[in-house]
């Protein structure tokens, strides 16, 4: 399914032995990915950091459950996606999201100068469009187009059939295409 790197295997072994340096390496290596998914899914940086931290803590506790047949990153994505979707599914969160557009306000790392007005507009539209996707579709599109996971990895992380991943991703892209029509050729 996915190739497992020698580094992963070594790191996992050290994690299982309780090597504290191993855990630090794990966090350093995967912090941006995990935080990125959390931010795209949850919208607020504070909440994303809290969720990402929880992802690593869960991984720390559950390293014994890690099956060596997948990449460590896929395993972390699995934990992160489950955690984010659960948070999003909580009724409290649903109420809080009424009319919320936090994702649209995720700042671009490039401040937009005046001559890049169109680009900033496009980015804003893009982020808003992503934010407006359903949670399930957003999760698939984030994993595929922002994080570059393969269909198989997504299927493994989200515990879905491959066909479900394919169709869900396609629906998500069609949604986005409709909203971004004016920025497309």
């Amino acid at each position, binding site marked *: 399914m996915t190739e497992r790197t020698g580094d992963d295997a070594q790191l996992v072994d050290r994690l299982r032995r309780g090597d504290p340096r191993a*855990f630090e390496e794990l966090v350093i290596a995967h*912090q941006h990915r995990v*935080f990125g998914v959390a931010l795209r899914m949850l919208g607020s940086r504070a909440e994303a*950091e809290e969720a990402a931290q929880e992802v690593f803590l869960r991984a720390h506790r559950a390293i014994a459950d890690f099956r060596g047949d997948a990449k460590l990153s896929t395993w972390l994505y699995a934990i992160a996606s489950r955690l984010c979707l659960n948070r999003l599914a909580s009724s409290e969160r649903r109420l809080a999201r009424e009319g919320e557009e936090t994702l649209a306000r995720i700042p671009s790392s490039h401040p937009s100068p005046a001559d890049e007005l169109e680009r900033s507009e496009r980015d804003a539209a893009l982020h808003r469009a992503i934010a407006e996707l359903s949670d399930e579709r957003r999760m698939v599109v984030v994993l595929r187009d922002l994080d570059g996971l393969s*269909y198989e990895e997504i299927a493994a992380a989200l515990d879905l059939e491959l066909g479900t991943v394919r169709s869900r991703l396609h629906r998500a892209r069609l949604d986005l295409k409709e909203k*971004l029509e004016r920025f497309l050729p």
Partner: protein
Amino acid sequence: MTCHDAREQLSALIDDALGAEERSAVEAHLATCAECRRELQRLRGTVALLRAIEPVRAPAGFVDRVLGAARPVPWPRRLFRALLLPWPVKLPVEAAAIVLVAVGVVYVFRTTPELQQASRFEATPPVATAPREIAPEPPSPDVNQKAVGTPEAARTQDKDQGPDQQAPEKRALEKRAPEKKVAPATRTFTEPGPQSKEAEQRGAKLDDASRDVAKRQKDVRPATPAEPQVAGKLEESRARSSAAPTPEPRADALQAQRPAATPPAVISLVPPDVSGRLAVMDPDAALQSLARLIARLGGVEDRRFVGDEGPIIELTIAREAYPELLRELAGIGRWQVTREAPALPEKVRIVLRITG
């Protein structure tokens, strides 16, 4: 392949996720359908926009915060955090702590007076200063029988008194007992005046303790009599003596003419209905006459003690027999009533002091 079928595959085509057959079928359709080619182009554009999004970076210090959170917290700190922080939420715990402390203070306060009482007893000189104190009386070997016999009365009280209540004072009295070698062993009975309930209960405790004292006094030489007084718990004793009246041995003891160590361990919760003095020439003869009289009238001698002035008898007779008792008492000696209840009950309780 229809346009609809082809468009369903476009995402997979972009991702290069189609099998060779599917891929050639879609490409064959696209070659003939400009609309679908345009659709593919826009979809590619959308994906390109998505993939152009700058990757997010975790905030600075994230790794350290994760490592800090993963480090096991020592349990006292964990407990502290769990109980006290954050303040607004856990405030009830502080309130509970205050209540606990308050309860503790009250508890200590309540238990301390007993300790103080115990020490006070130790400090008290053997000769009684309060009317309730144990009366030092010259003990006599004969009457030691009584000392052995009477504790059952005290034991009756033991049952009533919680051990926790009497324990401290009892210990105190036991400690004191050795100092009293020269003193007392007799329990004298005088008319119990109206006492507060508390005083009576304390008297009962004392009495119980005095039984222990009396046991130790068997071989002790008489000492100067001091003022005495212990109230009798008449109600109980009445019940007891009606169940098993034992006046004879006591009468014998008194016949021996020796006022003696009697630890009667009886406290009256209620004053007698009638009390008075019977002045006689010969107390022994008077006692014998009295015993016969009580028996004849169907009364019960509940208790007999030796006070500092002479024997004291506690008895119960039927109300109907009371007038005759008075008549007969006049024959025995000079009867002087010190107290008589306005309305006598069916069973009249009488305390009778015989004086010389």
